[in-house]
């Protein structure tokens, strides 16, 4: 074997090792969460509130809370994000406007999650006086997922062949009619993919709700958008850092982590399924 061949062997082996290590880490994380989390999961765990100072019972209020927060975030971010994507792709603004919007979307996507939390605290909790509530948390999470929804919708809209639009306009339809009757229905699967991925993101985020929505323990369930709320990711953090029974709490935290992981991963599995289906439609 000559030198070039040997160096190729070594080089490819190192690259192979990188992939194996990455997958190994993934395997270890999944193994620990699933194997230890399974023990904590039961019907009671999913449907009951916590008991005995966080050492027993279930985590139902946290699951419900995460559902409310995520739903609120989508209700806020979807219309805004979709409108922005429609404006960018369908109304083709001037270059300067396009650049300003593109830069602000990209940079908003790069803002650290805890900074969104600070913004939510100063603006929604204090300035608007919503307090620590589902409303404040949902709005904060909504801003966080906005850039993702915009880019996913934009991608879905640009995937629609130009001929579809031209055909509709040629028949005498106005721009808005074309968007509503042709562009939006055709791009729906793509937009849904983006929305579903954002649901996964919003459900798992912790830092933005630290100061805006979440509490470690709540008596009963929230009864309005202005109530404080328990949330699954925050509950994991709380169980690991607060309270007086670390051993029992760690067990419950494993259960919560498994539920959260299952929720987030099954949500992205649905998104990936939608994406595949959409590709089949577009590319036969």
């Amino acid at each position, binding site marked *: 074997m000559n030198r070039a061949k040997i160096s190729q062997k070594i080089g490819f082996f190192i690259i192979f090792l990188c992939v194996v290590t990455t997958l190994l*880490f993934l395997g270890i994380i999944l193994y620990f969460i699933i194997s230890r989390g399974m023990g904590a999961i039961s019907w009671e765990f999913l449907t009951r509130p916590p008991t005995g100072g966080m050492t027993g019972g279930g985590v139902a209020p946290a699951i419900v809370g995460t559902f409310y927060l995520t739903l609120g975030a989508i209700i806020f971010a979807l219309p805004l994000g979709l409108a922005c994507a429609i404006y960018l792709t369908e109304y083709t603004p001037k270059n300067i406007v396009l650049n300003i919007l593109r830069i602000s979307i990209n940079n908003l996507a790069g*803002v650290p999650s805890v900074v969104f939390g*600070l913004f939510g605290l100063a603006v929604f909790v204090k300035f608007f006086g919503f307090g620590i509530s589902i409303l404040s948390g949902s709005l904060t999470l909504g801003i966080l997922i906005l850039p993702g929804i915009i880019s996913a919708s934009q991608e879905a809209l640009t995937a629609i062949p130009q001929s579809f639009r031209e055909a509709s306009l040629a028949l005498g339809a106005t721009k808005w009619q074309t968007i509503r009757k042709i562009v939006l229905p055709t791009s729906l699967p793509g937009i849904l993919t983006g929305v579903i991925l954002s649901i996964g993101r919003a459900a798992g985020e*912790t*830092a933005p709700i630290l100061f805006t929505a979440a509490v470690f323990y709540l008596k009963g369930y929230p009864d309005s958008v202005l109530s404080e709320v328990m949330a699954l990711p925050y509950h994991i953090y709380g169980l690991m850092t607060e309270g007086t029974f670390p051993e029992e709490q760690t067990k419950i935290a494993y259960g919560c982590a498994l539920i959260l992981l299952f929720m987030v991963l099954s949500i992205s599995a649905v998104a990936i399924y939608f994406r595949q289906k959409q590709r089949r439609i577009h590319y036969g």
Partner: protein
Amino acid sequence: MKQKIKEEIYRWIFGILAFSSLLFLVGITITLITQGIPLFREISLWSFLSGRDWYPTYEPPDFGALPLIAASAFVTLGALLVCVPLGIGSALYMNEIAGHRQKSFLKPLIEILAGIPSVIYGFFGMVVVAPFIQKLFNLPTGLTALTGSLVLGIMATPTVASLAEDALSFVPNSFREASLAVGANRWQTLVKVIIPSAGSGISTAVILGISRAIGETMTVLMVTGGSAVIPKSFLQPVRPMTSTIAAEMGETVFGGLHYNSLFAIGLVLFFSTLFFNILAEFISSRYRLKLGMGR
């Protein structure tokens, strides 16, 4: 005529809503500045950035953010040592070595790694990585800068991998074919042709990985231990900027100096990630021009 007015109204509605992301970005900047500024009436910006003591609850309090900034830099650097080789290696494997089948199996796995919420990484770090590090080095606590770097590195790997993979896929196939045609083997082609031509795309991936690692909160909050001293070794507990904000906000008085100081840290954090994002944007727009793809 009525139709025309209606159309105009729709255009305006979409146009106005489209500016929401700009509004939020400006809103975040203004909020951080107005809430952070009162601190600088008490102490100078310089003594905030270079002060070595962070004792916000003492009387009189000390607001020296250097230990927190240094901790962020330290942990991010450590994370880079993990995520750069793993991320770029995975990208090279997927794009250059793996066949179509293997790739369609690997990509979703990397996406799963990217989809795991940060609090789960933090939890995993606390219950699995920290005890391991503690035993391995015989330390009083396993919650150290090293633990943080390791977990953060794993977490940032998929970001780097998928961005680097994008960059590699932009390299035209003709480059590859030309190199192979003149007798270079695949490894030589990879090192001498593909990596250099995807170079700026790969560096963009690394820069965005840095930005992600600096801003990550829950993981570092849970696994770095949280002592606000300037780090000297990877085996000691540290307190990066993000975890300082998250951990201390609960104990502050609204409108007090401590509250303002956390917004000032948020401002430092915001501008550092903004800097890296703009840098990445700049490099990638240059890179597209170089490969003749326009903007």
